[in-house]
């Protein structure tokens, strides 16, 4: 699933989530860095201050006392150290010794660093050089002024101090994230209420309306429930729909009246041909020989056939264009009706008709069209059949969202080479005097099936009967 498939609401929420998570993460990093820097400065300042203070104290013993007190209060370790200690307590550790050697060589007075000790813990270490001052000389005459005597060493437990800061930063981060999540949640609900749901409702309404327009039905306005962009969209759609369905209705009316007048104007001369032929037969039949009367009969039957053709053509043109009444249609009832209407022919031929028990009910279909399908297929099965006992089988299979129907016969069958031809309008496989017909029936069936989104095909072999298959959706979409 790509980003393009997501709904507008989801996209907005995603964008907001990314922004908020980004901002809060960046904010946490900034806060953390800032706090760390000020903490480092604070530790340095504290170490430097106490070291400066100690340097001012002349009494060595007092120095030790102050250091002890300081250590107790701060948790730091503050001590004096010397490269040549008199007191073993002032023995330098490795770091101190190294720093003091540097002090002695380059004359620096201060050094600090964060050092990881052997136990893996980090310590902030501060060292201040103790150099001989002038007032020292009076008591220590052998000393030179500025000579390195030792150092004040401050060791601050860096991990412990920064841990608190990390905890603070983490809680800020957590609070930020909670805020972010609740904001996103609220926005999500709002976007559904304000954007997604009204939009989806509108889309459903529009789709329904579009189908109604397509069917040329009376369409009602879709409801306009707000004055925001969605409301304006609905209003715009209503305006579009009105003009569309009006032009659609007019066009359909024009086609229908055109088709009607064509069929009328074509049929009026036929009425005369038939009428005057019959008048001729009635009034002058006795003055004609049998050949003359035969010709008149041919004229009459041709005129009638043309009438049937025009009617069928008219019917063909109406499929899918003119909407008939729709509803639930029981195919078993329809087949029953077809059999009743063909009862005379069925009895005359001694045909055996088997209809499956599981014939389903189709939803939202035009009963007359379903009747036309079965009527054409069943009457064909009877017509194109030379068997002494014509057998017809009507059945159905469930195929998930659609049904597969079939009408099987033991009739004359056809060569599969002509499979596509038989469904074409006015295409026939037989001579008129062998099997009567106009070649419109199967074309009508095909058009109805395809109008419903189904498919029709046949399987056959000359002399071995035919089976016509067609599919129809369980619920027609219209």
């Amino acid at each position, binding site marked *: 699933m790509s980003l393009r498939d997501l709904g507008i609401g989801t996209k907005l929420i995603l964008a907001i989530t990314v922004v908020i998570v980004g901002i809060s993460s960046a904010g946490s990093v900034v806060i953390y860095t800032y706090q760390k820097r000020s903490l480092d400065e604070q530790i340095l300042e504290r170490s430097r201050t106490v070291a400066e203070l100690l340097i001012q104290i002349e009494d060595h013993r007092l120095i030790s006392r102050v250091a002890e007190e300081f250590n107790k209060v701060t948790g730091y370790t503050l001590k004096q150290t010397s490269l040549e200690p008199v007191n073993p307590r002032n023995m330098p550790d490795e770091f101190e010794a190294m720093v003091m050697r540097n002090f002695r060589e380059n004359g620096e007075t201060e050094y600090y660093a964060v050092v990881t000790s052997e136990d893996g813990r980090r310590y902030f270490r501060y060292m201040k050089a103790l150099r001989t001052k002038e007032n020292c000389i009076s008591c220590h005459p052998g000393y030179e002024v500025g000579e390195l005597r030792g150092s004040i060493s401050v060791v601050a437990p860096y991990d412990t101090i920064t841990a608190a800061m990390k905890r603070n930063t983490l809680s800020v981060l957590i609070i930020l994230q909670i805020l972010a999540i609740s904001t996103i949640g609220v926005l999500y609900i709002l976007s559904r209420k304000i954007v997604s749901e009204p939009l989806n409702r509108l889309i459903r309404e529009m789709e329904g309306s579009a189908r109604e327009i397509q069917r040329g039905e009376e369409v009602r306005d879709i409801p306009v429930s707000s004055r925001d962009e969605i409301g304006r969209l609905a209003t715009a759609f209503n305006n579009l729909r009105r003009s569309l369905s009006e032009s659609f209705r007019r066009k359909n009316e024009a086609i229908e*009246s055109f088709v*009607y*007048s064509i*069929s*009328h104007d074509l*049929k*009026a*001369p*036929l*009425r*005369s041909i*038939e*009428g*005057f032929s*019959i*008048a001729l037969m009635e009034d002058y039949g006795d003055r004609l020989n049998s050949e003359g009367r035969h010709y008149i009969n041919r004229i009459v039957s041709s005129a009638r056939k043309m*009438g049937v053709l025009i009617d069928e053509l008219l019917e063909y043109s109406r499929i899918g264009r003119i909407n008939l009444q729709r509803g639930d249609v029981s195919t078993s009832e329809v087949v029953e009706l077809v059999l009743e209407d063909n009862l005379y022919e069925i009895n005359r031929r001694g045909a055996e008709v088997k209809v499956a028990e599981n014939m389903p009910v189709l939803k939202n279909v035009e009963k007359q069209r379903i009747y036309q399908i079965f009527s054409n297929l069943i009457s064909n099965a009877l017509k194109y059949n030379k068997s002494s006992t014509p057998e017809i089988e009507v059945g159905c299979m469930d195929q998930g969202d659609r049904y597969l129907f079939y009408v099987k016969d033991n009739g004359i069958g056809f060569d599969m080479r002509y499979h596509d031809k038989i469904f074409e309008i006015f295409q026939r496989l037989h001579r008129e005097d062998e099997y009567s017909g106009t070649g419109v029936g199967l074309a009508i069936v095909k058009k109805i099936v395809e109008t419903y989104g189904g498919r029709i095909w046949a399987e056959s072999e000359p002399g071995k009967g035919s089976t016509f298959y067609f599919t129809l959706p369980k619920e027609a979409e219209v």
Partner: protein
Amino acid sequence: MKGVVRAIDILLVEDSQDDIELTLRAFRKNNLGNSIHIARDGREALEFLKQVEEGRAQTPGLILLDLKLPGVDGIEVLRYIKSRPSLRRIPVVMLTTSKNDRDIETCYDLGANSYIVKPVSFREFMETVKNIQLYWIVTNQPPVVG
């Protein structure tokens, strides 16, 4: 039971020669012996009706009026008939190919007494014309005209 066959005249307004002949033939089959005056278009129909008003022609007891006529059409003829005091009571039967709702409404609004769509098949056409004649000449009780 057969009603009394009144010797009334019929005015047939029809432009198609075929339809005129077929209509006459259907009338003949009924054997009611009405005399029939034929107008081939609206103008001819109006001329005849004026003669009737002036007393120069026999007032018809039934008018069969086609709607789609060249020139003056059936609606105009109907409007004329229903607006003339001496003609308005004559039963007018519209006999036309139009199934148009507006045509039907207009005709009834103007006072047409019946509206019949010409059947397209010959047999039904013959039946319909015979029925019209039987109903309006035999069954229906017309007003006294003339």
